[in-house]
């Protein structure tokens, strides 16, 4: 990441931190919070897909596992939401480790098939274990976050906004540090030339296991946050719609850039919300997102961050 890009990221963070002082209505803050949640899922997906080159189409399942971990812990076991949210990261990491073992030695389309099947398996487990998961209806009326007597749903979601932003900021900072570390460089080496990487002492299978687990932790945490924030866990989180939307964010933003998917997540969440309010666009908005993805990939395969990089006169390198 160049100095210009670091300054841009810092400026964006400062700008987002002062947004609640100007944006005071609950709905707009809600859209920001959802955008931060999707951005967290997208940047973590970018770690395995963009940097690691692993066609992991089960990433959204880690998010869903975080959602249901928090929901089940708070409803069935009466665990505090403050513990249930990070617990989502732990269960997602365990699930990632389980799926990583067969995936580590597979290539290309087989990784897609196995990870996609994993997502569907999670969905079927949720649907079939209705006593615990609520089945097709899901779990509702989850407890909200509090600190002492202060409820997070007060003040037009002011505290939720900052918590969601903090989760995203931590994710982005950690991922940027990973990208600059020898581990991050080894991921790019494995992605671009696995034989050459192995010939320089890098265990390709081990790096794939590590990247899947690393990408799952904050995805599971933000899944837990999503459930507690919306106070609902629905099987839709394992569905194709969210996966398509988030992968669009990664590809439009610029796979492997970390910052790009975060920018795209904010832009696409607001764009799809805006289109939802236009008559006739309720369903068509997803077609527009898909078309936008194709256009961006044709015009600038490196995504919007590549376009910004060219405008700023710097490379796209993370």
């Amino acid at each position, binding site marked *: 990441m160049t100095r210009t890009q670091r300054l841009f990221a810092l400026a964006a963070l400062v700008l987002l931190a002062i947004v609640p002082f100007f944006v005071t209505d609950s709905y707009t803050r809600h859209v920001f919070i959802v955008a931060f949640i999707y951005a967290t899922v997208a940047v973590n997906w970018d770690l395995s897909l963009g940097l690691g080159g692993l066609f992991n189409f089960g990433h959204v399942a880690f998010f869903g596992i975080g959602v249901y971990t928090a929901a089940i812990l708070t409803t069935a076991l009466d665990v505090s939401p403050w513990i249930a949210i990070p617990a989502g990261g732990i269960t997602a990491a365990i699930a990632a480790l389980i799926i990583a073992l067969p995936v580590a030695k597979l290539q290309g389309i087989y990784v897609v098939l196995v990870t996609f099947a994993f997502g569907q398996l999670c969905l079927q487990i949720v649907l079939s274990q209705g006593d615990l998961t609520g089945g097709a209806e899901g779990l509702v009326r989850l407890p909200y976050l509090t600190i002492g007597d202060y409820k997070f749903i007060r003040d037009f979601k002011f505290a939720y906004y900052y918590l969601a932003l903090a989760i995203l900021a931590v994710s982005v900072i950690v991922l940027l540090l990973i990208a600059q570390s020898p581990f991050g460089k080894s991921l790019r080496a494995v992605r*671009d030339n696995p034989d050459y990487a192995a010939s320089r002492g890098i265990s390709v299978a081990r790096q794939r296991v590590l990247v899947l687990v690393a990408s799952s932790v904050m995805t599971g945490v933000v899944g837990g946050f999503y459930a507690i924030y919306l106070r609902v866990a629905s099987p839709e989180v394992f569905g194709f719609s969210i996966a398509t939307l988030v992968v669009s964010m990664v590809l439009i933003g610029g796979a492997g850039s970390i910052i790009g998917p975060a920018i795209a997540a904010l832009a696409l969440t607001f764009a799809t919300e805006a289109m939802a309010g236009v008559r006739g666009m309720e369903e068509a908005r997803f077609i527009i997102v898909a078309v936008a993805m194709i256009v961006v990939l044709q015009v600038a395969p490196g995504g919007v961050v590549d376009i910004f990089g060219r405008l700023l006169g710097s490379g796209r390198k993370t």
Partner: protein
Amino acid sequence: MPDPILTLSGVTKTFGGLTAVKDVSFSVMQGEIFGVAGPNGSGKSTMFNCITGIPFGPTGGEIRFKGQRIDKARPHDIFRAGLSRTFQKDAEFPDLTARETVALGGHYGAGLRGQHTRDAVEEALDLCQFEPARRDMQTADLSVYGKKQLMIASALVAKPDILMLDEPASGLTRPEIAALDDLLIKVNAIGVTILIIEHVLGLLLSVSQRLLVLNNGAVLTEGDPKTVIRDERVVEAYIGGAAA
């Protein structure tokens, strides 16, 4: 007589009904430059791949490196044990700079960290006479010879016992081949054993102390390079074809 550092015994590689390497046996001695020649399709690169496990190991036979069997070892463990290789085609990590590429070999291959890695990177790049001005360039932007130098530097950074080169002169100009010749002599002089596969016979004859010729996946002959290239079977199988 030095001890063998690498020994192949009856190594065979089959792909379905095709036998690409047939019962190949030879030893590479500690500190020597050992050349392997042979016409196209003779099994040179397949044998190379079998030794390093990239992308596959042998179907049969035994490979020992420093006395330990490596024919079932994982490729990254083989590198960490001190056996490194280059590739015939330009291998690169296009997203990484030259320094970052070499550093990966030091970090993962030799377990170096921090300043030790940085020092080893500069040392390896200096040894390969890789221009300082190009060290922070992304590898995708390097010349063919630059990429070859980088492949060798990223192998040498882990201080291997043996360096295996798969047709390093392919795609190079005459001055670059001469520079490569000097580099291999220099690398060998610091104690690194070299096993080289090459089509450019001039380079092989210039640097090799012993030469083995493969034909149709089997060993045709082995010995002093000047004697080997006069062998009628070699002339018929390889040099004769080239001369014609």
